[in-house]
């Protein structure tokens, strides 16, 4: 359940529908499912198997594979920890907007409200601006909530996910049903699902499908290794991997209906084409959707509350799952209590999040997200795959998974993990480098260096330093 909650996050609502729409509509489902079955599920089985075998978090698991590979585990734990520092700020925005929904504070111009009144966006990343107090207060609430969930350990997480996994699903279902009853909704759905099969011959569409699966399922972040370490000895590894991956896909698919039905309604109400509306990322959640909510004929406030509550509950279990690998890592390394490890990590995370509460927060969030999703995660996934498949014996993990699984995995899985997945990740990485050489992400170049490249390199060195630290056991011996 916790792994499902971790896999399903904000990206399912604001990324998948947009990616599907721009990559062939309904036809995108074909490369998407191919990617899911050839990369997403095999990688999930691998990570579940590693965690289940080692009974430890990512750093200790890699240490068990070979002492010199511990840094891979730390790296895998550090990447989601950096991501969560800005991910939680987006949740803080959702929390603020949940309160604003009570009086539809964004008024008739949601864009101006979001950019000027709410964010006080500066002219560029170098003009930092002051800390926005409403965002800071919401941030405090969200971090405190995450701390409360995590500090008691896996028992409390188990109880929390019993609510935070089904609740957003129910809310999303209500949103989709309500959206589908609005005028213009079918026009929106038709944009979402009408297939353009000619796109299937485009390599970029296939890369987009693999990237979507890779980021959405939550692999290469140490999360699934950590969660699998708590699985019972007899847990069915393969079946669990299929359930997590398909629950994630099912949520993304459903989210498309909630998003595109409302977009169709908004396009019809304003007499403009759907292609002119922001349908991805923060633009969807904080500009397009609030605008549509304001135009609803009835129950505007209820709809606003349902939408932001669903985003918050979708995000919360992803957020604490991104913190968990780091917490488990330091807890196991220095043998400190779970509460102490959680307090340290949450405090460091909160301080790091402060940058994103400033007037330039959105710029830095965008730069970090761009580099960590395109380079950080892919690089970790690639190295993880190479170490587990080439340095260690991939067949060992297949045999381990088969010991407890009903569905037995064949040698085809070894081929996928050894050759197919690393090849796809290498292509994704090279495509991202090529894209940046052709057209650098933001100017000037040293902002890219400061905001994107430096943190990616810094966490690599941080992982190496953490590996070199002696454990309490090693100090006493």
């Amino acid at each position, binding site marked *: 359940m916790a792994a499902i909650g971790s896999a399903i996050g904000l990206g399912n609502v604001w990324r998948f529908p947009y990616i599907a729409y721009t990559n062939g*509509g*309904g036809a995108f*489902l074909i490369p998407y499912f191919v990617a899911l079955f050839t990369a997403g599920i095999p990688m999930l089985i691998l990570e579940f198997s590693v965690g289940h075998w080692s009974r430890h978090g990512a750093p200790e698991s890699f240490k068990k594979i070979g002492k010199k590979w511990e840094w891979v585990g730390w790296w895998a734990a550090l990447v989601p920890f950096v991501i969560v520092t800005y991910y939680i700020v987006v949740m803080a925005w959702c929390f603020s907007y949940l309160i604003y929904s009570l009086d539809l504070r964004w008024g008739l111009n949601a864009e101006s409200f979001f950019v000027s009144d709410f964010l006080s966006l500066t002219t560029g990343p170098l003009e930092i601006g002051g800390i926005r107090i409403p965002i800071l207060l919401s941030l405090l609430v969200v971090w405190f909530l995450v701390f409360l969930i995590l500090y008691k350990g896996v028992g409390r997480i188990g109880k929390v996910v019993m609510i935070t996994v089904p609740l957003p699903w129910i809310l999303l279902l209500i949103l989709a049903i309500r959206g589908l009853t609005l005028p213009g909704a*079918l026009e929106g759905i038709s944009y979402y699902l009408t297939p353009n099969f000619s796109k299937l011959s485009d390599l970029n569409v296939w890369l987009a499908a693999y990237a979507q699966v890779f980021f959405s399922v939550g692999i290469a972040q140490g999360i699934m290794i950590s969660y699998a370490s708590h699985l019972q000895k007899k847990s069915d590894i393969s*079946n669990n991997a299929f*359930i997590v991956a398909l629950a994630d896909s099912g949520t993304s698919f459903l989210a498309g209906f909630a998003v595109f039905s409302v977009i169709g309604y908004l396009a019809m109400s304003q007499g403009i084409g759907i292609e002119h509306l922001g349908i991805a990322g923060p633009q969807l959640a904080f500009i397009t959707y609030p605008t549509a909510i304001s135009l609803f004929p009835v129950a505007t406030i209820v709809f606003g509350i349902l939408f932001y509550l669903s985003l918050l509950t979708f995000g919360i279990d992803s957020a604490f799952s991104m913190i968990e690998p780091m917490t488990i890592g330091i807890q196991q390394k220095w043998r400190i209590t779970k509460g102490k490890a959680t307090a340290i990590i949450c405090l460091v995370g909160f301080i790091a999040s402060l940058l994103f509460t400033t007037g330039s927060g959105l710029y830095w969030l965008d730069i970090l997200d761009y580099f960590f999703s395109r380079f950080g995660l892919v690089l970790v996934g690639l190295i993880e795959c190479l170490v587990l498949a080439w340095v260690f014996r991939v067949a060992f993990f297949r045999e381990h998974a088969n010991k407890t699984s009903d569905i037995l995995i064949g040698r085809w899985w070894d081929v996928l993990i050894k050759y197919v997945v690393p090849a796809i990740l290498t292509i994704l990485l090279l495509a991202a480098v090529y894209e940046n050489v052709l057209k650098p992400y933001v100017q000037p170049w040293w902002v890219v260096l400061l905001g994107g490249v430096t943190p990616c390199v810094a966490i690599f060195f941080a992982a190496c330093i953490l590996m070199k630290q002696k454990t309490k056991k090693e100090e006493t011996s």
Partner: protein
Amino acid sequence: MNGLPLSALVMLIFGAAICYGGITYFLYRAFKARYK
């Protein structure tokens, strides 16, 4: 527009069958194994 184009409807059924059919099947297996 009066309704969804047939091709969109086919993709809807295709997506729903894999996602929800798949998850139902694997959940059924999990429950069957648990209460065996």
